[in-house]
């Protein structure tokens, strides 16, 4: 068992090594995207129930003002990302492919766009639960993509203690650089955020996991780290899907999270570095989650950039700002190429969980012939959960979903490593998603019948 002290380059077992294509935006400093003519803020951009609007159409709101509040515990506050007028609350296209109730905001072109309630929050006198409550006020969700409400994650269940706080700065998705740029340009907010969260969790120590393709960031963080902060930078081998909570916990701490359990069950909490930096900014000058760093990249966009984007900015506006798309664009993704989601319409908004926008051309996207499985072992060697995707794939094809349970399908975290390596181009993880959804549905039906 590797201790936290004596380590060189840690990693998890299995996984894949896709080309990272990070050089497209590696050296682009964060640019501030101007406020566009219209911002669309879906009430549901996090895991959990949708937020409830607290403003009405026609109302003038200020940047950072609460416009929708959390509805229930697993939900999140939503703030105006610009000063302007609420022009509508209506159904709009959502990046998930559905139409979702959204608050439409028309930014005031003459407003200086200062923050609604600019202040620094002194957390030294706050109790852990008060800090968590404050973070909930700021509307923070996991910025890595899953968008799980942060205050929920930071609330340890009764009787459970947290020892380690893991900051996820792995960014193992190819193409994306938003976490990397945050490390380089926002390290002060990150350190403050770590301090806040450590206090909120009453945890012993924080570890920042960074992959070796960000050596300069590792050096910089080590240099700038405040001496009194119980925090350590952990260089990790560059490998996908190291950013998954289970893999990061294994890589940094050499602890396995038991099947079906959460990091908290091994006294660990994992947060994305963007979230931590946002929390730092919130306690520094009172800015809730109203903007985020988005890597706009890929061979299909004319000017790849790292942008600070007001939440709710429409994809079409980002495209126009980045010089437009090339003609041969075939797919536009929100998120990275391994776990992101394809977009059909360009009027969908950038949300809290949108870490990148990726434009793929017909060179990357083309129909591939599917061959039968030749049992080449590549998926078995890739699966970070040690499943047998080859076997699961043939069971899924035969729709033997119940048999898939015996092969631990529910432990699949849908990282897509199996589909990535499969030389027979079998849509493995795609079939697993369907199988898992059906099995969950079946289970829900059974428990209802009882």
């Amino acid at each position, binding site marked *: 068992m590797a201790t936290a002290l004596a380590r060189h380059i840690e990693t998890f077992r299995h996984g894949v090594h896709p080309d990272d294509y990070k050089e497209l935006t590696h050296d682009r400093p964060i640019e501030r995207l101007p406020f566009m003519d219209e911002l669309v803020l879906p009430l549901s951009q996090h895991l959990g129930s949708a937020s409830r609007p607290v403003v009405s159409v026609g109302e003038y709101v200020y940047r950072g003002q609460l416009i929708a509040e959390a509805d229930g515990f697993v939900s999140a506050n939503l703030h105006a990302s610009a000063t302007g007028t609420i022009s509508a609350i209506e159904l709009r296209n959502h990046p998930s492919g559905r139409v979702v109730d959204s608050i439409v905001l028309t930014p005031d072109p003459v407003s200086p766009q200062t923050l609604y309630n600019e202040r620094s929050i002194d957390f030294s006198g706050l109790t852990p639960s008060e800090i968590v409550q404050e973070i909930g006020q700021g509307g923070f969700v996991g910025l890595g993509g899953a968008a799980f409400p942060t205050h929920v994650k930071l609330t340890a269940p009764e009787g459970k203690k947290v020892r380690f706080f893991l900051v996820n700065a792995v960014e193992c998705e190819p193409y994306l650089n938003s976490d990397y740029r945050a490390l380089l340009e926002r390290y002060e907010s990150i350190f403050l955020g770590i301090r806040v969260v450590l206090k909120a969790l009453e945890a012993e120590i924080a570890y920042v996991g960074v992959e070796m393709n960000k050596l300069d960031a590792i050096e910089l963080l080590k240099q700038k780290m405040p001496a009194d902060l119980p925090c350590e930078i952990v260089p990790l081998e560059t490998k996908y899907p190291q950013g998954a909570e289970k893999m990061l916990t294994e890589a940094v701490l050499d602890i396995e999270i038991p099947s079906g359990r959460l990091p908290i069950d091994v006294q660990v909490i994992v947060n994305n570095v963007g979230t931590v930096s946002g929390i730092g900014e919130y306690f520094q000058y009172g800015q809730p989650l109203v903007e985020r760093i988005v890597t706009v990249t890929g061979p299909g966009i004319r000017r790849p950039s790292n942008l600070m984007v007001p939440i709710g900015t429409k994809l079409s506006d980002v495209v126009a700002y980045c010089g437009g798309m090339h003609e041969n664009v075939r*797919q536009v993704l929100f998120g990275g190429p391994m776990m992101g989601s*394809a977009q059909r319409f360009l009027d969908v908004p950038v949300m809290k969980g949108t870490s990148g926008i990726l434009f793929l051309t017909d060179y990357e996207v083309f129909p591939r012939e599917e061959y039968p499985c030749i049992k080449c072992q590549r998926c078995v060697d890739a699966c970070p959960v040690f499943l047998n995707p080859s076997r699961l794939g043939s069971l899924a094809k035969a729709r033997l979903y119940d048999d898939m349970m015996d092969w631990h399908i529910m432990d699949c975290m849908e990282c897509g490593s199996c589909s990535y390596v499969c030389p027979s181009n079998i849509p493995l993880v795609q079939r697993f998603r369907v199988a898992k959804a059906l099995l969950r549905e079946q289970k829900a039906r059974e428990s209802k019948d009882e």
Partner: protein
Amino acid sequence: MPTKGPQLLLTTSPFLKQREDTAFLMWQVNYSLVPVLLVAVWFFGIAALLLTSACIAGAALPEWFLGRKSERNTLRDGSGIITGALLALTLPPTTPLWMAFLGGVIAITLGKLIFGGIGSNIFNPALVGRAFLQAAFPAAMTTWMLPEPGASLPLHGRLLALPFLKPDVDVITTATPLASMKFDAASTPVADLLLGSTAGSLGETSTIVILLCGLYLAVRRVLNWRIPVSIFATVALLAAVMYAIDPSRFATPQFHLFSGGLMLGAVFMATDPVSSPITQRGCWIFGAGIGVLVIVIRVFGGLPEGVMYAILLMNAATPLINRTTQARIYGENRRRERSSP
């Protein structure tokens, strides 16, 4: 303002894929068989080329015939051609062409297509074809000639014999190194075995070329190096132990390693991904099993050579190996795993 994009494709993640597909892997194996075939041509002349063509034609015919109506022609993935070429490399250079052709047909139909085609076969198809020929034409499968390196056209009349007729052309026959070991206790110099100037089937002769081709495939990650390494290690170990016990009765480890079809079998046949285990631990066991069986058949069995049956037997054990070597999944309790089905 445009709200609708260009023709945007809606698929689900991952959107990135490595570019080497199954057909690419299969053709890599085919290309790496070319040097082995060239060596066979050097030693056995045009006969090697004709036999290989006959086997490939035999293997390709049913694959093409049964796939001609489906939209995807399975011939293009190259796996049928591997089967044909490998079968040819296991044949004595004096095999009549019609037998070679028939062997190819049997290899693909009984070895692969009746199981459902590529990916579904339990046994290595080339070895199924070879086992059929061994059973049906034992005499032809054990008639060996000495190689004639660089000879211009050693085209024997036997080669063109008509089906089921006894060829009346005689060749100067000889024994393979393994047969002379078994029946006359005569050893063959290792240098001859390495270079291939001994009697044997087309691909049994030059050990060095097969090893180099295997090395290339292993580096390209087309074949799993664990299988041949485990076979070699087991064979060498067992042979060394026996040689140490009684050097007058048993052959040296290097003799066992470099003679017969061990190289060809270990590098090109045992490594067939479809019929070998899917777990890495399983591959070590699979290779060790082959190694043990090879030695058992060669030393204690009635046949001089046992690579073919060793691989076929371990092919049959593969599903069992897969089941027992399934890894403990991430986060799974060690104790619970043993009691689960």
